């Protein structure tokens, strides 16, 4: 038993403490969180724009956007990343991290556009008409009638999308960018002792997921307690 603890102690020392390797992991963690958040925000923006274009009255806009969306959905993320880094921006001096964020955001945006579009279609068109006949402008109808319902309908899938984005960012290791996954890999290759680094990486990914879930729930409760379906269930109980 003692021998086991000794081994664990050694392992922790060599993987984390020696040469301040834990900093490497923390930096990787920071980069992963940054990329995820940036990708997700940019992706949401792209998704919203795509979704708006998809309900456009002009058919050529709808078709173009649908085609671009399909392209991003069908190409594997890694291939998309390769295209961005080695083909489109090969001659331009740019941070690979930024390029990666843009590439991920395009992909995430295509998915989010789908999510938002489905949610928009779930809104009863009669309610939009009702809003208009009360005398509200298009913008007001969107803000007070459509948007709150889109949020209600989209939130569960949107939440999953964050986790998917989080996991996809680990692909940047391919370009020697030290995110969380790559950091643990680098440490492992130095120490030839995979256990501690990989276990820590796993736990951190799980934690990020749990925290984001918690934040979403908080948002969901606070903002939509009265509007969400939970309210109805609670009030009928």
């Amino acid at each position, binding site marked *: 038993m003692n021998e086991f603890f000794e081994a664990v102690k050694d392992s922790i020392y060599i993987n984390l403490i020696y040469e301040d390797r834990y900093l490497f992991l923390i930096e990787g963690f920071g980069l992963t969180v940054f990329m995820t958040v940036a990708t997700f925000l940019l992706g949401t923006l792209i998704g919203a724009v795509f979704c708006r274009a998809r309900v456009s009255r002009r058919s050529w806009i709808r078709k173009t956007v649908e085609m671009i969306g399909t392209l991003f959905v069908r190409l594997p993320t890694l291939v998309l990343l390769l295209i961005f880094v080695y083909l489109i921006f090969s001659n331009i001096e740019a941070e690979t991290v930024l390029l990666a964020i843009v590439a991920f955001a395009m992909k995430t945006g295509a998915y989010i556009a789908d999510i938002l579009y489905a949610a928009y279609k779930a809104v009863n068109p009669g309610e939009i008409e009702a809003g208009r006949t*009360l005398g509200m402008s298009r913008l007001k109808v969107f803000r007070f009638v459509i948007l709150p*319902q889109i949020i209600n309908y989209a939130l569960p899938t949107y939440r999953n999308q964050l986790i998917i984005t989080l996991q996809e960012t680990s692909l940047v290791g391919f370009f020697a960018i030290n995110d969380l996954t790559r950091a643990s890999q680098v440490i492992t290759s130095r120490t030839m002792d995979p256990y501690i680094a990989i276990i820590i990486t796993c736990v951190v990914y799980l934690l990020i997921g749990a925290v984001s879930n918690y934040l979403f729930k908080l948002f969901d409760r606070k903002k939509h307690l009265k509007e969400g379906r939970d309210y109805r269930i609670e009030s009928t109980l």
Partner: protein
Amino acid sequence: MISIRQLKKSFGNNVVLENVNVEINKGDVIGVIGPSGCGKSTLIRCINLLEAPDSGEIRIDGVNIAEKNAPIDSIRQKMGMVYQNFNLFSHKTVLENVIMAPIHLLRIPKKQAIEEAFSVLKMVGMSHRADFMPDQLSGGQKQRAAIARCLAMKPEIILFDEPTSALDPTMIDEVLAVIRKLVKTGITSVIVTHEMGFARNIANRIFFMEERGIYEEGTPDEIFDHPKREKTKIFIQKLKIFEYKLQIRQLDIYELAGKLSEYGQKYDIAKRQMNGLNLILEEILVFLSQNADHKDMTSVIVSYQEANQQIQLEIRYGSPSMNVLEHPDFDEISRQLIHGLATDISCLPGEMGYTLKLTL
């Protein structure tokens, strides 16, 4: 208040409204009736521009909303609309539904808006359901909440687009009662409805729509008791028409009987009445076929009034040029039989020579 000129509206190649001219005055209560698909809803949807007309003018208080850049939002604020499917905002409570437009459009402070909301909710009998979500309500309650939402904007005109068509029969009355109460306040309203009795009681003018426009217009008594035009009569009296035309010398009484029984089954006409009808037709047509000139055409028109279950029989024939029932060769027993079965027997010179009319 509302004045429509030369309105035309089509969907693709399907012309729904054509050359519609309407004048609606302040305080009018208009009942719009007509068969399905005659453009009733389209007309009412054109009035607040939910459907853009192809051509023509729609003036609301003098402003032509069919024009581009018409200030439609501000006009809509004065014009409420109640839908067949209620269309309450499903993510908001009843109270929130009612206060949304006043707060964001009329800029009324929230507290005051809530007070006013409760007074309209009270009027439609929904104040005890203010905190409910729409899908916790029954159909009738939803519709009353939708009416309250409309009233909160203090409209000058309310358009009702078949307000009871999506409701259970048990809930229709509660909604009609609310509308009745509302109309008594003197608000101008246009009500598209299939509830004939309701339209008759509540409206001061009735539009009967058919043939891509307003086919006949009048007071409820004129339209319901003395409709002038053919299609209005058919619609109001729920006439079911059967027509049969033949060369009388080639009479095939069995073919006619077959077609008649099909017609009788389709409209669920009582067996006893159908038997009487068959008997009368047989007696008269057989007599005609033996006494008529060669190549004489005869037509039989049966119209069944669903409302009072009466059958009107019309036989138009060319010869003999007199009332067949008074023809000297007409069998006496048959004559008595017919007089026993039918009432209101008349025979006048008509389209094809003579027209014999009987009521069963």
